[in-house]
């Protein structure tokens, strides 16, 4: 049987196209939600620090997890805790891009969406089934 995977995201471009668990909030809100899900036994499938745009340059983040058996996966916990620590290091006030604000926001969402899509393609559909949660 294929393993069930799901997306946690705060990116509306992702929500428009895929079934996903929507987080209302910034990057840290996504990370904290993922940490809760890891504690509940789910397993991280895509790296939380995907992309070279630094935390808080962009606030958009999509992460794929697989449904676990209820046992906490320590590798996943290590990954998300490191991501949270890294995020705190990069914390800074929100940039104002002036008239380009909406374009920049759209670019950040597009890149996150693209990295997620790359990840989903990498996982494929032979072993994994994307579900709504």
């Amino acid at each position, binding site marked *: 049987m294929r393993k069930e995977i799901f997306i946690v995201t705060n990116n509306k471009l992702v929500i428009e196209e895929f079934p996903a668990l929507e987080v209302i909030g910034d990057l840290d809100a996504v990370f904290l939600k993922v940490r809760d899900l890891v504690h509940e036994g789910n397993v991280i*499938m895509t*790296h939380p620090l995907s992309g070279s745009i630094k935390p808080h340059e962009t606030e958009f983040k999509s992460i794929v997890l697989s449904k676990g058996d209820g046992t906490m996966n320590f590798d996943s916990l290590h990954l998300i805790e490191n991501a949270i620590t890294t995020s705190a290091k990069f914390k800074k006030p929100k*940039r104002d*891009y002036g008239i380009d604000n909406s374009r920049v926001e759209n670019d950040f969402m597009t890149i996150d969406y693209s990295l997620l899509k790359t990840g989903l393609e990498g996982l494929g559909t032979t072993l994994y089934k994307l579900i709504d949660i």
Partner: protein
Amino acid sequence: MQLKIGNIYIKDVQFASTTEVKEGVLHLNKDEFLAVAGDDERIASVDVYLAKPGEETRIIPVKDVIEPRVKVEGDGGIFPGFMCGVEQVGSGTTHVLKGAAIVTTGRIVGFQEGIVDMSGPGAEYTPFSKTYNIVLKVEPIDGILQHEHEEIVRLAGFRAGIYVGKAGHNVTPDDYRTFETKPLVQQINEYPDLPKVVYVYMLQTQGLLHDTYVYGVDAKKIIPTFLYPTEVFDGAVVSGNCVSACDKNPTYVHMNHPVIEELYAKHGKEFNFLGCVVTNENVTLMDKERSSNMTAKLVEFLGADAVIISEEGFGNPDADLVMNCNKITKKGIKTVLITDEYAGQDGASQSLADSTPAGDAVVTGGNANEIIKLPVMKNVIGYPEVAEVIAGGFQGSLSSDGSITVELQAITGATSEVGYGYLSARTY
């Protein structure tokens, strides 16, 4: 496989009626150059500017840097899979216009990065302040999305590099360097008493604006494989990586790979350099497991006693770096890692997003969070208006006097993770 590199040292670049190299000066026919570089129906306009060392010039935002090279003897051409077929490259003779560079600029996305200052404090941090730069500005037609825009700018840069490189075809080089790696068994037998070293060459491969290509193949789709190091000198590996200016490897750096050059310099003296294993840095943990397993297996199969591993990027790639280090170490092979650091503006924070006790020999390219103030420049090539939105900057980065305060991460090549830069540490 043997490659002879003929260096033609370029001392100046000027616009002229004929594109040619005369007494070390690169003459460039502007119209011809623009016609070749702009030869893509998706391009609305192209323009070209010259930027020379010492000038009060800023180039912003820099997308890629390409060295003009031409194959004068041997199979294939420069940039296989893009500008020619996919013949095996890395043998024969290649001429290089050493000191010249094509620099591409384009507004692919709204946020920007990639500063090259030709003088002042910023110039000390980028190797491309020392090259005679032919700056190519590319504007696509309306309606082009980010993926395609990146590809258009990338290919225009390669076409420009090939066009300029051809000017060196019939020029006698100022000097030659010969690099040779033999088939594995012969190579091992040539220096049986020296330790065998392999270079694990990690490539940025996460997706849009984060890609690298090997012989035209998107490297996120490769299984780690072996490259003769000389293949890289003919452009077998090219950059489509537009994010994180300080520690991405522009195509120029792949073509002049400092780790490979240094390994060759000590080849046959201190160790036996067997070649390169290229691998990727994908976003899924499954890909990371697969690629690091394959990399460790290949390195062991090649008979390495030690490996150098360099990463490209920060965060996600740190996981690949650590996996490669752990799995190779577990096979009893020594590792040296090359990275850069995001240690906070005061340098006091944890440098990487992952770590391992096996990583006991690490070389750093510097702290990308360090702050630098860049003064106003007389000329700005590219898109001067983006200074306000530069990545690595922050609200208020642009002062009223026009100077910019940014982290080093905004400067192209400042903390190169293959060491193609000027930062170093000294003890007193």
